[in-house]
């Protein structure tokens, strides 16, 4: 984890209201593992006051990519960054997906909406480790779909404009033959409702599963205690999302 002023390489629109921002950070690009995030101070002053956390989407050379949709104060400012602007980045933060373990042969990647964010970097890791990959992504419609840098992708849209008329979880269930007999492990990111369904499916089918959570954070690295995640039957009631997550084994937590 370092804090540094990074140069914005560029900001590019990749889908409706969805942007990829690339910044230069040799350190973050080289040490970040899939599932980790960076915490960005998008503006000086108080609007917004707090940093904004973003999953690292992909790294290439000295470049780090994040992907976001414009929903509020922080993302509106980020969207307008120009090549050469400096942003204050803290990272990499958090515990990555356990892609380096040997308890699986097939990485099953599930992303809902902007939950695709950590999937490209996860794909790169899995491919490099010669694991099989099955990818299931869902979005509201074809216009918000981002499939770049993914492999073996199945698509669902809420409005049926591309792929299955349904959700990423529907896809996951429908195509279970593709992975279920090949020592699968699910890595999922997306809205809470989706993660809930993925976790239920994984537990019911005894498939190991990790999810990447999202929630309000003030610091992103453990000094504010602002990001509790409820643990199941542990000696403690809460873990910290930023420091002990954002990725969690679904059996550990109450989503």
């Amino acid at each position: 984890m370092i804090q540094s002023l990074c140069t914005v390489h560029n900001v590019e629109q990749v889908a409706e209201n969805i942007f990829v921002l690339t910044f230069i950070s040799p350190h973050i690009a080289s040490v970040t593992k899939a599932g980790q995030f960076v915490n960005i101070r998008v503006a000086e002053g108080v609007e917004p006051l707090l940093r904004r956390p973003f999953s690292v989407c992909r790294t290439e050379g000295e470049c780090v990519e994040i992907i976001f949709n414009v929903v509020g104060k922080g993302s509106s400012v980020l969207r307008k960054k120009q090549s050469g602007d400096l942003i204050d980045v803290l990272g990499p933060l958090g515990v990555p997906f356990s892609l380096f373990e040997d308890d699986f042969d097939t990485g099953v990647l599930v992303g809902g909406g902007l939950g695709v964010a950590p999937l490209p970097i996860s794909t790169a890791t899995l491919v490099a480790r010669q694991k099989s990959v099955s990818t299931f992504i869902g979005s509201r419609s074809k216009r918000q779909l981002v499939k770049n840098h993914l492999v073996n992708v199945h698509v669902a849209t809420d409005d049926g404009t591309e792929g299955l008329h349904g959700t990423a979880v529907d896809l996951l269930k429908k195509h279970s033959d593709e992975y279920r007999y090949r020592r699968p492990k699910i890595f999922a990111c997306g809205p809470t409702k989706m993660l809930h369904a993925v976790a239920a499916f994984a537990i019911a089918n005894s498939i190991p599963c990790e999810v990447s959570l999202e929630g309000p954070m003030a610091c992103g690295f453990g000094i504010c205690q602002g990001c509790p995640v409820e643990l199941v039957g542990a000696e403690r009631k809460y873990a910290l999302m930023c420091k002990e997550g954002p990725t969690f084994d679904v059996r550990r937590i109450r989503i």
Partner: protein
Amino acid sequence: MYEGYESDMITTSVTLAGVQFKNRVLVASGTYGYGDDTIELVDVSKLGGIITKSLSMKPRDGNPPPRIVETAGGMLNSIGLANIGVHRFLTEKLPFLRTLDTAIIANIAASSIDEYCNVLDALEAEKGINGYEINVSCPNVKEGGLSFGTNPTMVEEITRRLRSRTKKLLSIKLTPNVTHISEFARAAESAGADALSVINTLIGMGVNIHTRKPMLSTVTGGLSGPAIKPVALAKVYEASKAVKIPVIGIGGIMNANDAIEFLMVGASAVQVGTANYIDPGAGIKIAEGIRVFCEAHNLSDVGDLVGSLDAKTEFSAISSWL
């Protein structure tokens, strides 16, 4: 004082109740963990001091999520004093803190006066702690959850009881959610406090109008950050006029200029809170910024700023027509 004053000759340190602080900028309780989370990022020994997260007797899980929400120029929190408890603090955190070259102040929270005493006793038994800050913004279980900090008699009693148990620096951290903070300042002073920490967070709330639910699980929480700076300055001004003991100013300090405002209205030192989340090195930058300001203004001691406000008008929080 003359023009070419050497920068390295500016006195930044200060001794308060026997504790030497290398500069007047500390990090506030609850905004720097136990001082060990930022070591990869900053040289924490450059801080004037570290106030720990509030410690209670037993570990506390804290409140359910959501605990944090951003507001205009500020943030609300409802952490619920999640902490590892005084015993794990002593075994897991204090050994590291002892290695730091900065003052360590343990902040204590409790739900009964006895608990305050017990936590302090546990800390007194160990070396490496320079003093105590007492968070009185805690619910008094005996009085049905009414905050200790809104009752001057309680503040006086807590202070007296703790004073009798320690000779170390004892600072009472006052809540701003009272009519006359001067009353509380005097209560703590008369009971033997060495210093006052002013202010804790303002009570506030927010609503998610789409779900109709409060933004925080506990409905209300504590407001901090730049939004509260004007209120904090007025409270520090009022408190420091009321007592002779030093006041440590807290509330919305983001940069050296903010800190200097607090010093000028009467704070002998300051604490940086919310700013740490945005920049874990904020405290160090602020200490350096204050030094540079003194240099530019030919002051030989940061202490020359303390109480240097040029206000002809008397304290007017009450008497001015708003």
